[in-house]
């Protein structure tokens, strides 16, 4: 059987370069919140200040497939009547629209953890925000790399 190289060098180089760029995005420290996300957050908070912390946005830094990405948002909070999470929302930077999900919680939830599966159109930044009963807003921003599936219809 004719054992030609699988890819010719130019294609292989392109692929390696692409993945190299992707890896750079994954390992660099989180960049400042993009304008799109700042605007989306302002819509959710009504202009109230937000702080990084208390929220953990769990998502793969390099997703297997952008069509179905498992996410879990956890908030460090006791969920008592006096001190609980009232809302958790997720916003994206580069999908056709910013909103992903907006949840309302009550103290009867017990543990402020929400899991779902989302669609990501491309490599982008995402932010999860929690509103606490004392009126404060807490965020966690993540950068995610999304590649197209190798074999599609």
């Amino acid at each position, binding site marked *: *059987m004719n054992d030609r190289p*699988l890819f010719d060098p130019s294609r292989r180089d392109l*692929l390696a370069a*692409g*993945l190299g760029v*992707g890896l750079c995005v994954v390992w660099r420290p989180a960049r400042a919140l993009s304008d799109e996300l700042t605007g989306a957050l302002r819509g959710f908070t009504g202009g109230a200040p937000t702080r990084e912390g208390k929220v953990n946005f769990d998502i*793969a830094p*390099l997703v*297997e*497939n952008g*069509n*179905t990405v*498992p996410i879990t948002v956890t908030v460090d909070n006791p969920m008592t009547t006096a001190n609980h999470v009232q809302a958790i929302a997720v916003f994206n930077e580069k999908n056709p629209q910013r909103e992903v999900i907006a949840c309302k919680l009550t103290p009867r939830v017990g543990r402020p953890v929400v899991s779902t599966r989302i669609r990501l159109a491309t490599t982008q930044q995402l932010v999860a925000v929690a509103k606490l009963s004392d009126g404060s807003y807490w965020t966690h921003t993540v950068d995610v*790399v999304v*590649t*197209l*599936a*190798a*074999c*599609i*219809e």
Partner: protein
Amino acid sequence: MLALAWLLGWASAFAQSAPDSKRSGFDTMSPRIQAMQRDDQQNPGMLWVADGEVLWNKIFGITFSCAHCHGDAKKSMRGVAARYPDWDPIDKKPVDLTQRINLCRTRHQLVLPLPPESEEMLGLEAYVAHQSRGMPMAPSAAKELDAPRERGRQQYEQRIGQLNLSCALCHDKLPGHMLAGATIPQGHVNGYPTYRLEWQGMGSLQRRLRNCLSGVRAEPPPFNSTEMVELELYLAQRSAGLKIETPAVRP
């Protein structure tokens, strides 16, 4: 360490036959996606299995349900998916599980066959194959399947398409390597029908093969064509011994 891994990779690249150590595509997935498959209450494929259970007991047309002849699928269908594709002695050709289901419908239930990739067919196929979950794939030993299977193997090793690639080049020689952002799996067929994240839905092996064929810019043969079934036949043999995972979740 890296040099050893590189050497091993290089050595395995020259292997002509199926990989010595068979690894399910499950192993190349991230823990998050593995968890999605493992938990029956998170696995979207189980929605189709649940649909299939309803269809199993449904009376189609004016005759009877699958359950009428086959009873409790948990008993009667156990091991069935493990040996398919199998030989159909009436039409004298190999048939895969979807074709077998349709043969039951046309020959015994006297109703129209279900279209390929229809939600009902995927549900029924998922339900039947699910009853063999955990059992090793054990292709039928019918002698009549030898020649079609050999033709399937030749297809597997034939370079095709504008990209001039064969299945063997990626899946026998380069599993574990990267293709864009995806890890190349060994390409086993132990989880079909599968919930593919790319489809956000359930699909059969034939649908997945058509994706691969489009990927190398070849013209996919029609659903249920002879070439498709012969290729499925070879792939089932190639995956022999791997435990069935239906409904699997794959990227």
